[in-house]
């Protein structure tokens, strides 16, 4: 929907919890559409806050953060929830899955929550889920309980869920830190190929600098953030 080159653009973005000190103060930060960006974010660097702002769980000052052409700060909380559901795929470090749903229902969940994202599917929901699962090599696991999966399998289910319905922006918050080196590499490969196919932008946050050279561009949050962590 947004053909301009900027996917995320933050300018003079500050954030404080309540009346506390600023935990985030970013003069300028841009992610271009279609980019795969590695963001180095050790703990205490304001990573959680930045991702919360981009995803619209936290509310920035109006005019300071633009995501996919939307001024996040001027959206209502309900509109930000809808925006996130429709345009952003999110992968956590671990425990990505709803424990009482099976793999199929977990993958389908964001599309069930958001009708706009559903309308972008080619074909039926079942087909789309099966396709996403096939892309990540977990098609045999569709009817498994998620509690039976290994951590690597869980992360792949989470990735399939994030790319379903091809959201414009995929945020991956340390998705590989629970995996061993071999699986980490395989997971990244899968993630890259799926993100590319979906035409999404990838914002990948990690404290593992060793992964940085596999991305188009790498940034360091401690450098971006002027606030005292």
């Amino acid at each position: 929907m947004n053909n301009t080159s900027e996917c995320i653009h933050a300018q003079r973005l500050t954030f404080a919890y309540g009346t506390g000190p600023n935990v985030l103060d970013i003069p300028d930060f841009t992610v271009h559409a279609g980019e795969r960006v590695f963001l180095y974010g050790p703990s205490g660097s304001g990573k959680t806050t930045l991702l919360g702002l981009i995803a619209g769980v936290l509310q920035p000052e109006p005019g300071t953060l633009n995501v996919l052409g939307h001024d996040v700060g001027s959206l209502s909380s309900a509109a930000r929830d809808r925006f996130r559901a429709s345009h952003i795929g999110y992968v956590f470090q671990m425990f990505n899955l709803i424990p009482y749903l099976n793999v199929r229902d977990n993958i389908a969940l964001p599309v069930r929550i958001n009708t706009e994202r559903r309308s972008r599917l080619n074909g039926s929901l079942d087909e789309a889920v099966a396709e996403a699962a096939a892309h990540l090599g977990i098609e045999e696991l569709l009817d498994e309980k998620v509690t039976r999966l290994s951590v690597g399998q869980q992360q792949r289910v989470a990735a399939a869920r994030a790319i379903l319905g091809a959201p414009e922006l995929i945020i991956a918050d340390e998705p590989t830190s629970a995996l061993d080196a071999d699986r980490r590499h395989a997971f990244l490969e899968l993630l890259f190929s799926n993100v590319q196919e979906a035409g999404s932008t990838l914002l990948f946050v990690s404290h593992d600098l060793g992964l940085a050279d596999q991305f188009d561009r790498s940034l360091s949050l401690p450098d971006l953030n002027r606030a005292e962590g």
Partner: protein
Amino acid sequence: MLLLHLARKSLANRLLTSSLTALSIAFSVALLVGVENVRTGMRESFSNTVSGTDLIVGSRGGTIQLMLYSVFGMGSPVANISHETWKEWDEHPAVSWTIPYALGDSHRGFRVIGTNASFYEHYKYRGGQSIALAEGRQAEGVFDVVLGAQVAERLEYAVGERVAVTHGMSAVGFMNHDEMPFEVVGILEETFTPVDRAIYVTLEGITAIHMGWESGAPPMPGEEITADEVLAMEEVPVSQITSFFLGAESRAYTLQLQRDISTSEAEPMTAVIPGLALSEMWQGISYAEDGLRVISAFVVLVGILGMLVSIYTSLEARRREMAILRALGTGPRRIVSLLVLEAGLLSALGALMGVGLVYGGLIMLQPWLEGRFGLLVPIRMLDGVQLAYVGAVVVLGFVAGLVPAIKAYRTALHDGLSVRV
């Protein structure tokens, strides 16, 4: 629909906790609905203690007292009515039948009632059921005795047995009329009413017991009348009865008869319509069932509270789940709805199981309740009150769900996408 799907799966995931919670609600609902059922059964049993009788007539006094000593075998009459007065009303054109009752004696703690053949023919209880003899025959002779079912069972008397009847209502009285040898000639079938707890003789039999007692004191030595002397009499003179049951030729005469009897010049008398008096008496004792109802309401409250606690304590473990739902774009309000829905589903399930328990229990226990206590608890559709109870429990469940839901709402807002424990 999605929320319903999630709520269902989430509950199923915590199957043990969910089913125990639902079960505790089920038991409380079963108690609430069951109490109502038993209450209905009790009221119906009570108001059917005597049926088919239009009026009960005794000497002037309280209606409840008259009911107590005539129907329930409790308390004593203040005065008697004369045999002639009874006969007059017995032959009244608007009167179809009467059953005379002569009270005042007991045998080993059970009341002795003098009556006549009309009792066996016209006495009805519980929706027009007639009394019937399980064994033997009706009392006809002066010394014939018919036992109520419970009397026969307790005292282990059989037909043909000779018994002594006491004057006055004490089982240990030393002034036993041992010289009057009564004989059991019949045993009534069980009715589960006070009929079972009495001994029936003829009016002449009652009179015979009192011969020589006319002054109110025991007969002087040498003045006792022996059984042989009674038997030798051509006719035992009956002068008094205590009360009589009356069936009118038509229901329409009942009120007129009641007025006529109450204002009768011959003798001061009271006539009561048993159905009316019974429901009046029920009103008097129904505060006990209100208490029962209050207790069951509290049990329901405890059940709902248990559910609230169980959902509330599960929230800590579900913070991660809430963060995931938030990341997928679920608004905090939908998280509230999800938890409220879970609570509502649990209480609805509990209510349904509770109703099932009541019906299951009734089907199994109904014969036993009737056999043991004479309490016929009807199996029928839930009435309006019961449906309202069940509905209230479900609504209460939804409302109670708001408590953990609001807590989850706050946590979800605070946690956002990360769980800070």
